[in-house]
């Protein structure tokens, strides 16, 4: 982004951003209203802030830790028990990949990558991680902060585009650009690593996954993220997920959840361990298939 002259009006800068963005690589953001470039005077910036919604406070996901509660199977599962799954619109090849992962868990191997203290990554952060989470809305970008990790998303609303396709590389949270449609934040995210499942069930996605989110307050205590996920490698059609987050009291204690602080449960030999002080030397947990249900 080129620098902007101080003292210009907000309207002029927004127009400038629109003109610049039109020439950058932002195919999902054909129109560039609702963005604010960096570098405004604080007086002009304050005028933009007055148009943004108040998302302050603490929020907890509703519907548990399965990414898509509406297709949870069995219904109402929390992605914690072997056999718990959901139904993304996978093609046959990717349904087989998911089935193989589910069977591996049923055979007694518990290998959620976050157990090794890797980041949850995207899209999982929006549905497969406990709260609380917080939003920091600024004109130029919005941060989402999770206590767990802590982990952080940056959603740029300064009018930039994604990197050109040939320069992109995958990362845990990917690359998120957004714009405001009234008080709804519309976000386009690409470049997410393909080794982060949607949740503990192990539902996989490819590195071509493309996420569109529409975030808004439904009322002062309910926050909504309406997601559409395209995955041309794994899906036969887009996956639509509506997640909600409920406000919890703002004075609720929030601290560190630092995974590597004392790690008693690393994944070793393909299995989650559980290290006790009295373990025999070299003891490792092997497969622990679930007993048949009565």
């Amino acid at each position, binding site marked *: 982004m080129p620098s902007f002259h101080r003292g210009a009006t907000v309207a002029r800068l927004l127009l400038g951003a629109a003109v610049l963005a039109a020439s950058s690589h932002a195919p999902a953001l054909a129109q560039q209203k609702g963005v604010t470039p960096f570098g405004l005077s604080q007086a002009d910036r304050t005028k933009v802030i007055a148009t943004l919604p108040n998302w302050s406070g603490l929020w907890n996901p509703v519907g*548990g830790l399965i990414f898509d509660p509406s297709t949870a199977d069995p219904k109402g599962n929390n992605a914690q028990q*072997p056999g718990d799954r959901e139904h993304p619109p996978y093609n046959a090849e990717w349904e087989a990949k998911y089935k193989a992962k589910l069977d591996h868990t049923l055979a007694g191997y518990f290998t959620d990558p976050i157990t090794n203290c890797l980041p949850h990554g995207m899209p999982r952060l929006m549905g497969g991680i406990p709260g609380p989470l917080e939003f920091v809305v600024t004109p130029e970008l919005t941060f989402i902060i999770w206590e767990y990790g802590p982990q952080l998303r940056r959603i740029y609303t300064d009018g930039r585009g994604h990197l050109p396709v040939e320069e992109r590389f995958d990362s845990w949270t990917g690359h998120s650009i957004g714009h405001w449609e009234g008080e709804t934040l519309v976000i386009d995210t690409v470049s997410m690593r393909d080794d982060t499942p949607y949740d503990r069930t192990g539902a996989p996605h490819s590195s071509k996954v493309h996420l569109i989110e529409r975030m808004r307050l439904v009322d002062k205590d309910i926050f909504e993220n309406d997601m559409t996920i395209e995955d041309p490698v794994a899906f036969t059609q887009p996956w639509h997920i509506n997640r909600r987050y409920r406000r919890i009291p703002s004075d609720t204690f929030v601290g560190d*959840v630092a995974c590597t602080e004392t790690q008693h*449960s690393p994944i070793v030999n393909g299995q989650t361990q559980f290290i006790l002080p009295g373990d025999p030397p070299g003891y490792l947990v092997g497969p622990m298939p679930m007993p048949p249900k009565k």
Partner: protein
Amino acid sequence: MRISYAAIGVIGLLSGALGAVPALSHHSGAMFEPEKVITLEGTVKQFEYTNPHSWLYVVVHNDQGGETLWGFEAEGPSALMRAGIRANALQPGDQVTVRTRPLRDGRPGGAWVTVTKSDGTVLNPRPSLVPASAPAN
């Protein structure tokens, strides 16, 4: 048996608000007995208020006159704070009754369900846990 004042406060404040909270979000709980809960009595050796999980080590006397060191895992400090279990809630030497979902491989460890102190205080890491099948909204 009484529940600590702090725990009542947190339950009153957050029940119904937190929604489905995972028992042990950092790793699968499938290493523990899914439904069987056993009760053990013993003496606290150490209470580690640590991430990603807190640990309570308890010396349990067995029928043969020997003693076994058990390890019970609960959530980390943030979740325990929200559950009303403070860092000083348990001291070495405290007599406790522990309800645990034991490890399925038979070692002396498990998931902390509740710990009851000799004064009757019940320490439940998950007071606001509601079934995952509860209505989403």
